[in-house]
């Protein structure tokens, strides 16, 4: 009786070891480009040209970053990106919370029809609105301003409103009724009851908006045309095409662009995984 058990646990250990080996190998495929990039960002160009990417730098060489920040204007791009992304995120989250509250918890005529309009706009692909939005920004004389970069996304996102509405609807009505009886205004109910009870979905919305704003490329590419308003993605793309194989600078610039996201990812990793699963609409 005991012999087969031992045998099968032995087989199982081997199977589990193989599983972990496979998973580690796959993880390497995902991580290796980042590792090589960090290595290269700390190497002088001569070293990048002469040794393979998998050799770590001999010492921490900061000149690439110094060049990017000072001569390459990346300090400005970083500041622009931070400014635009924070404005976009704050607006999108706050206005989405407000809208979702009305759709989830207030009774007003035409509510459900209006919500359908919001849902229909989910079918409008991003790529399709680029040209008309450009034309509108041009007419409004907003081209080449910070406003143009975040305005189309700052007033709330239908998708986020949809997610939040689902969440708000699950908050027990009694809690809200009790607050109304106590004479709380709708604004107070939203701020003091709904928002504190909805942290997961609000953090999710914040992450979605932030990552979207930080990574956005096509739209800022179209509405900005001077270095003073460029965001990181534009600076990086220009850098890469102008700096013809000066990989030390463009790879250091990639690190500058990705580093803030890496920090956020490290801090919120558990939440991000949960968030993505939460965002699935079926």
């Amino acid at each position: 009786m005991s012999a087969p058990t031992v045998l099968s646990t032995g087989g199982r250990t081997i199977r589990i070891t193989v599983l972990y080996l496979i998973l580690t190998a796959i993880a390497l495929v995902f991580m290796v480009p980042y590792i090589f990039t960090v290595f290269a960002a700390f190497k002088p160009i001569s070293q990048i040209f002469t040794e393979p990417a998998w050799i770590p730098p001999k010492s921490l060489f900061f000149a690439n970053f110094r060049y990017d920040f000072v001569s390459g204007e990346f300090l400005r791009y970083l500041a622009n990106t931070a400014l635009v992304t924070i404005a976009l995120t704050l607006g999108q989250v706050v206005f989405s919370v407000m809208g979702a509250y009305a759709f989830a918890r207030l009774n007003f005529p035409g509510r459900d029809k209006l919500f359908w309009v919001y849902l229909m706009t989910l079918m409008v692909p991003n790529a399709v609105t680029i040209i008309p939005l450009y034309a509108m920004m041009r007419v409004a004389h907003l081209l080449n301003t910070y406003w143009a970069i975040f305005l189309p996304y700052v007033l709330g996102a239908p998708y986020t409103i949809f997610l939040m509405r689902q969440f708000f609807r699950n908050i027990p009505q009694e809690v809200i009724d009790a607050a109304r009886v106590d004479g709380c205004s709708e604004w107070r109910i939203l701020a003091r009851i709904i928002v504190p009870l909805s942290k997961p979905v609000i953090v999710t919305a914040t992450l979605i908006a932030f990552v979207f704003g930080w990574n956005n490329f096509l739209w800022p590419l179209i509405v900005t045309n001077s270095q003073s308003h460029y965001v990181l993605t534009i600076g990086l793309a220009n850098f890469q095409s102008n700096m013809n194989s000066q990989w030390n600078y463009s790879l250091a610039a990639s690190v500058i662009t990705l580093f803030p996201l890496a920090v956020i990812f490290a801090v919120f990793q558990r939440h991000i995984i949960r968030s993505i699963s939460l965002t699935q609409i079926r």
Partner: protein
Amino acid sequence: MTRVVSPPTETRRRPLKRRNSSGLVGETSGGHVGQSGLRAFLGALPFISPSLVGVVLFLVIPVIVLFVISFLNWNLLSPATVAGFMNYLNIFRFDGAAHSLGVTFYYVLLNIPLQTVLALGLALLLNSKRRGMGIFRVLYVAPYLSTPVATAVIWYWVFDPKLGAVNALLAHVGITGPQWLSSPSWAMPVVAFVNIWQYVGYNMLFFLAGLQAIPRTLYEAAEIDGAGPVRQFFRISLPLLNSTMLFVLVTGVIGSFQVFDTLYVLTQGGPGNSTEVLNLRVYQVAFTDFRLGEAAAMSVLLFGVILLFSIGQFMFFRNRITYEYSA
């Protein structure tokens, strides 16, 4: 690139979750229109007005404006003139719209099937309660959150024929690597590879969630009936993942049709015009040629294709969902 999300499928019954997904059905739709209705409406107005302005100004009106521009000759410098349907003809005659459409399909075909199979495979590997699965999951998802422009710059370097790690590695085993992004036949596969790398972990998460929602008892029953793991996968897991599959495919296809950032950095449509997808062509015609009418017509074409595909995919899977079960 950020993904545009598929329209939610409101009425589909979600197994294992008690709520009906939107609650629009069977709900008291807002109060009576009248004096109290007006008051209720005015009360709600401050809450909805910012997002309503946003939706109308930045989503509804642009769609209308897009169609209007697609009927104009407009080069931004001189006043626009009416072009009628000419733009829709001219994009096929002079701007390579058909070629770009073909290239876009080719890209989607290289990208989506492989990505979906890999995502499902990764989910199956990670679908256990063993230690460390969380760490692997996080590592696999990391590329999804990374800036596509930055990862494209990185991959451009990795695939550099002379200096890149890929060819350096191949040289170690005695293979002379191809020119990758400068090769008309390799450029698109490389672009597809980069996008698969970026999004496969993200899609894996949905399959993982789908797999974990399948009740254990089904597998136990299958085991008693003598079904092996392969049979269990094809007879239980796969059919029950239908709605996850639909979501992953629809969002994946919609996203792929709009690919831009990666291509802008990696190939700019080249070599030649071998990777000139529709969205990139729209950008070129609009913002390097300044022919907004033609570009808008091409956008309408893209919009139409995306809609058709989403609807088609939706119908296909709707008819195939046979294994509904209730909790």
